């Protein structure tokens, strides 16, 4: 669901850069304060995992495609700010190496996927984990994909209203909310089921590895 370059008006992405820049600075400060060397290898592996997941396009009904993100894993294992920084780095690499997502849209993609998606996943996990770790992981995975889809649908849907020529023709993206909301939410609600299952599976594997209980 990365938004490519050319789809978003400057009056949206420029303030987004300012907001994301400030939040990246906050994130880096918190990361440095909480950094523990023993977590770095796992963080590197999970960030690499998120990078791979985001390059795999999964066909969904309707002829479009979506991708898993690994955001819930990063948020649940390392916290929201570390998740935000890791996902921002992944999105930057994807834009530079694959042309997936854009440079002008980087802050929007990072804020939606890394920060909002991560925060939603961490919150759901914290609330539900007391009752059931399994349910907490499944739902945090699901919400880590649907919240960013909702936010990006709003960002795309508002483009025709805020950026159009004198004759009303849209300058950047032509579809409004009535199109973008179902177009993004429905496939990602489906994909979120897979993301939830993946979050549960990988979390359990990482947990076992950390406790040294992997046989072989």
């Amino acid at each position, binding site marked *: 669901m990365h938004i490519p370059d050319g789809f978003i008006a400057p009056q949206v992405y420029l303030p987004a850069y300012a907001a994301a820049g400030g939040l990246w600075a906050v994130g880096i400060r918190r990361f440095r304060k909480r950094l523990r060397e023993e977590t770095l290898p796992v963080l590197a592996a999970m960030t*690499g995992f998120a990078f*791979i997941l985001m390059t795999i396009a999964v066909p969904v009904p309707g002829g479009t495609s979506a991708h898993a993100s690994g955001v819930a894993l990063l948020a649940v294992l390392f916290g929201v700010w570390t998740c935000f920084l890791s996902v921002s780095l992944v999105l930057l690499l994807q834009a530079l190496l694959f042309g997936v997502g854009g440079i002008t849209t980087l802050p929007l993609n990072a804020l939606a996927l890394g920060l909002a998606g991560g925060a939603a996943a961490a919150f759901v996990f914290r609330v539900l984990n007391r009752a059931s770790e399994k349910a907490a992981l499944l739902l945090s995975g699901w919400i880590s994909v649907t919240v960013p889809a909702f936010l990006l649908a709003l960002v795309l849907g508002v483009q025709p209203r805020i950026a159009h020529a004198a004759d009303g023709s849209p300058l950047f993206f032509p579809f409004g909310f009535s199109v973008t909301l179902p177009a993004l939410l429905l496939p990602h609600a489906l994909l979120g089921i897979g993301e939830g299952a993946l979050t549960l599976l990988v979390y359990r594997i990482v947990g076992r590895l950390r406790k040294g209980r992997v046989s072989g």
Partner: protein
Amino acid sequence: MIRRALAAALLLALAAALPAAAHEVLHEEATGEATVVRFFYAGGVPFSYESYEVFRAGETIPYQTGFTDAEGRVVFLPDREAEWGIRVFSEDGHGAELTITAGGGAAPRADRPPVDRYARLLAGLGFLFGVFGLISLFYRRRSARSG
């Protein structure tokens, strides 16, 4: 007298009907060399039946608009050799924007091949692990200085 009046009325009626001829849609057939640009997702699935716009470089009014065909292709006949901007977009925000040189028998150009995609994936992973390696190095030096 009545016949002249009727003849005049008939002529007037015919004259009034002449603008209607402007609404007739005519056609002529021709052959030409088309430019074909195919769009597809990373897995090879065509970007089919999605909206597109073709622009001459520097112009804001599209030269051609439409929907990609079943194979995800945009097909147009450039009226001159020039730079052409093509935008394709779907309702869920997928799409691409590129500039090509077309018209005048310009040579075809393709995105980098799939094998190169795996090399870029490995390069990205290598970069990521390198960044975390540097962070680890930085952390150790900081700990050594403070410890």
